[in-house]
């Protein structure tokens, strides 16, 4: 089963990874240019602006002269990034000297942008037509709800409440690496699946979007088109309605999927269909590393191993159920207990004690965070670790058992032989029985044959 390493990488890393041809095609779009500019490290931004109206290549050497010695590393990072994104084109002349110039398309677009100002990718619909738009709160909660129900479905395909527009094959792709899907077995969350659930929404969203883009070719969609649309989307205004008829074929099909994820809310107007981007969509291109909007904690763990989660989310309930026994579900509280049994189930599924503990600590309710004592009682964390280490006490070694030795000499000889080969696990000289590691079984057999 392929293990997917989950790294919450930047959207731009994905853009940078595109082949040169596609990347250049992307820069036809002014918004992409702007989005890329925004995503650059500060020094790189400065270089772009500095070279914006210079049409000649600038030598790498002269650029190096611009920086002080302690800024060299930053300079390197900036240059690397610019080359990666093909904002800078590297030119090596006959004297093997390197010089850089701005990607002409990128340059042209930005010059135009500076001279004429930015234009929105499409006009939002006038408020006279869109009479009842959802409020910001409504939209936020809608987005969250969509996202959670998607996640719920993702981790527990067994209980379909609402069917998504995603084809089951698409769902399978998302689940790959998160769930272990074996035939005739209920899907189980894998270690990285659990890790996935513990990540914040932005990181999770990015993981799904990345999978979505990577696998777009399978659906006959150019990934560059998709990326450009997603970037374009981030220039739309949250909460404004846009006319869906301005979208092309690819975009229209994408928009249904995005609605499923909560990036977009679809609304039926009198004449046309509208789409309303949510916060999830407009934040998509924002660097994911700074998750300033850290979710507030909601879990209280008591010294008696009981667990109280202030949450209305079914998803939270499902997450807790991975390692705790959920006993009561109240409108805004989930009550459970961490038991040895529930933890053993979690350990069996590859979830580690550290993951559980860090989940409990990271999501600790402000009430218990603020006090002097640890947010999760020490005796609980200790016990969780001990239970895990308890499981590791017994080591399983494949082995073979020998008995009915014809004589004491043969038995002792066999013991010595096994010991010399580093495979003797146990011996009982009284009853002449021994256990030997399976890996030297053939050696052992040959040896015993020779004794006959």
């Amino acid at each position: 089963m392929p293990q997917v390493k989950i790294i919450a990488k930047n959207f731009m890393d994905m853009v940078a990874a595109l082949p040169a041809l596609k990347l250049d095609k992307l820069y036809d779009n002014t918004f992409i240019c702007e989005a890329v500019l925004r995503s650059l490290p500060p020094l790189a931004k400065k270089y772009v602006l500095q070279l914006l109206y210079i049409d000649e290549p600038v030598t790498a050497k002269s650029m190096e002269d611009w920086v002080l010695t302690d800024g060299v590393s930053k300079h390197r990072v900036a240059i690397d990034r610019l080359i990666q994104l093909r904002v800078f084109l590297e030119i090596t002349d006959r004297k093997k000297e390197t010089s850089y110039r701005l990607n002409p398309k990128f340059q042209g677009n930005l010059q135009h942008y500076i001279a004429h100002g930015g234009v929105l990718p499409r006009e939002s619909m006038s408020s006279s037509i869109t009479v009842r738009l959802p409020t910001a709160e409504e939209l936020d909660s809608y987005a969250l709800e969509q996202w959670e129900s998607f996640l719920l479905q993702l981790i527990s395909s067994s209980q379909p409440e609402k069917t998504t527009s995603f084809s089951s094959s698409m769902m399978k792709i998302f689940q790959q690496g998160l769930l272990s899907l074996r035939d005739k077995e209920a899907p189980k969350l894998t270690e990285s699946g659990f890790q996935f659930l513990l990540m914040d929404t932005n990181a999770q969203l990015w993981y799904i979007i990345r999978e979505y883009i990577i696998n777009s070719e399978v659906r006959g969609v150019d990934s560059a088109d998709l990326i450009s649309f997603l970037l374009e989307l981030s220039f739309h205004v949250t909460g404004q309605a846009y006319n869906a008829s301005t979208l092309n074929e690819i975009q229209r099909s994408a928009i249904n999927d995005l609605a499923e994820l909560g990036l977009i809310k679809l609304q039926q107007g009198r004449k046309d269909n509208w789409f309303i981007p949510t916060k999830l969509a407009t934040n998509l291109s924002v660097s994911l590393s700074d998750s300033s909007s850290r979710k507030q904690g909601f879990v209280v763990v008591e010294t008696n191993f009981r667990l109280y989660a202030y949450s209305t989310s079914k998803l939270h309930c499902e997450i807790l159920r991975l390692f705790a026994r959920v006993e009561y579900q109240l409108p805004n509280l989930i009550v459970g207990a961490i038991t040895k049994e529930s933890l053993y189930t979690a350990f069996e599924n590859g979830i580690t004690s550290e993951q559980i503990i860090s989940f409990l600590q990271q999501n600790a309710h402000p009430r218990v965070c603020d006090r002097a004592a640890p947010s999760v009682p020490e005796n609980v964390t200790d016990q969780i670790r001990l239970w895990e280490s308890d499981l590791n006490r017994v080591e399983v070694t494949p082995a073979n058992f020998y008995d009915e030795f014809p004589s004491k000499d043969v038995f002792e000889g066999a013991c010595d032989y096994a010991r010399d080969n580093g495979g003797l696990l146990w011996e009982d000289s009284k009853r002449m029985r021994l256990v030997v590691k399976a890996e030297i079984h053939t050696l052992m057999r040959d040896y015993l044959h020779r004794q006959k």
Partner: protein
Amino acid sequence: MAGGHGEKHHRPSKKHKSSSSSAKITESVDDESAYYGEEFDDDNNRDGDREGKKMDFTKLELKPDHLNRPLWACADGRIFLETFSSLYKQAYDFLIAIAEPVCRPESMHEYNLTPHSLYAAVSVGLETETIISVLNKLSKTKLPKEMIDFIYASTSNYGKVKLVLKKNRYFVESPFPEVLKTLLRDEVISRARLSSEGSVGTDSFTISKAIGEVEGTHDELLNGIELAAAEEKETHAFEVDPAQVENVKQRCLPNALNYPMLEEYDFRNDTVNADLNMELKPQAQPRPYQEKSLSKMFGNGRARSGIIVLPCGAGKSLVGVSAACRIRKSCLCLATNAVSVDQWAFQFSLWSTIREDQICRFTSDSKERFRGNAGVVVTTYNMVAFGGKRSEESEKIIEEIRNREWGLLLMDEVHVVPAHMFRKVISITKSHCKLGLTATLVREDDRITDLNFLIGPKLYEANWLDLVKGGFIANVQCAEVWCPMTKEFFAEYLRKENSKKKQALYVMNPNKFRACEFLIRFHEQQRGDKIIVFADNLFALTEYAMKLRKPMIYGATSHQERTRILHAFKNSPDVNTVFLSKVGDNSIDIPEANVIIQISSHAGSRRQEAQRLGRILRAKGKHQDRMAGGKEEYNAFFYSLVSTDTQEMYYSTKRQQFLIDQGYSFKIITSLPPADSGSDLSYHTRDDQLQLLGKVLNAGDDMVGLEQLDEDTDDIALIKARRTMRSMSHMSGADGMAYMEFSKGKYPGQGHLKSIKPKDPTKRHSLFKKRFG
């Protein structure tokens, strides 16, 4: 291939204890406890029958201002309370009155609404409507309909009828005349009725005005909710024949007419019984929680019967003495053994102004009789309930106890006394008011139900953690020390032939011994603490104490010897550790000790664990240091030493349950002594360990398994055993019989074992010496 551990031990989860004897006990128990068959609720059943199914109450409607309200109530009776709510204190007082606490750790409490708890609520004067409306005010959600129905169903009959002893006439009282009519339709009751004007059969009742509740505590709750009963209420009453009172009570019990009667004592208007001139001394300042428990008892100016639950060391005796001082009538105080009789007598003279000659002790050793027409008698349950032949002197005293009308029957440690003994004591003594005191309302045998109707409902239960925070009891650091079995001991432990020696093997585990020795050294030398080591296994107790050269007290230790050892422990700087068998679980008062090391214990008894912890709960040091954030965070230590991979692990988890529910947490220590030390401790070499193993294996099964005999750890049984062994002539000859009868009930053949033992203590001791020396 396993790496050496053949047996996979099954340690249950912290929260999950096996509980087979839980919810549905209807058939298996005798009549008295079957009142509430179906709904019988003990904290035991919460795990067992909820296993697997989860309660989904997400449909309950949240109130818009739910953030300001402190609790959630579920249809199955479970209530969750946020302790950080601004209404916590009020909500806590209310909940403790109407519901049974399940667990009370730091942030979130859980309670169960049960028929018993509601009975208790009604009996302290809360009415059905009040319970529902306050609960509704406090709840974040709309109350589930099931809960409202449950409260109605449970309380409809409770508290409607009172049995009042007024001017030495028994009255059945009720504000609802129709209820009295229902009762009178019963043949037994109507026959027992005494008619004041001789007009038998009339429907007219005596009507009087009852004084309303004068309880302030609830009134402040939630701006002006009227929690207390109406100011003045008409009550209807009829008189019953004193001789028939027991029968009338019986008829009113839930298995008959189902109007359980509350007993109240209008002591102020009791002119028949002589007043006892006693008051609390000025220096006796009851603490807030003691006040509160008393206010529950005397809420309406009369004295209610019931049980008050306070942790050990929190000052139960002051509550008892204060109650006696309020009633100011003769008081019979029952304790579990002679030592605590002495302590109670001392408490009376310490806290109250009662004259010395008005307190008398009645034990096998001291048979005092008070002068005057009122006084306090302190005795043991055994002395009163004893059924055999008595000496002439004690016969006289018991006759006096029988004939007197007691204002207050004060019962200590009610949880340890077997129900049949209670019944006997209560039938022998005529009392107006019964007050039971205990620290732990848990019984392993589920007999707690009996107490509800024999004594009365639980009037008050303190929260351990709040008392710790308030600095009223010591802040104890609990630790479970894991001692791996040595290879040799574990191999023997697993052998079938050694099934009877299992306990001895895991208790004598050299690693445990070393951990114990290490802890004793650490606390004696580094902190200058006073240490109690508990061992239920006598073989282990003797081995440990002798090897470490420390004094020990067990069942056969004479009274003088005990006093001498305890005196030295209290006063001598050289005696800092004492070894106790389970005789030390209850009532031996050792306030100096602040460290407990438990090396062996009675299976999974939650009560024993709590009782032992109670030995060190008495707060020490300056009050302000003990408050939250004070100088000393922990000033007492409780270590439970368990041998890993043995039964002990399982028991240990079970034992801790009660304390964990009170908010205590057990820290697990896995390596004692620390890896880099310990070479100077005993049994460091394998040879020493093997020698010890040989000793354990060579000891007779009966010796190493001795403790098994005293299976029911109730102190009562022990005392009897001890007395039997001491001198037969001292007591009447039948005492031994009583013991045998007791033990036979549970463990056939045990009486036989006991009886072949020499009765003379000195002889027995030498036998010990020969065996182990």
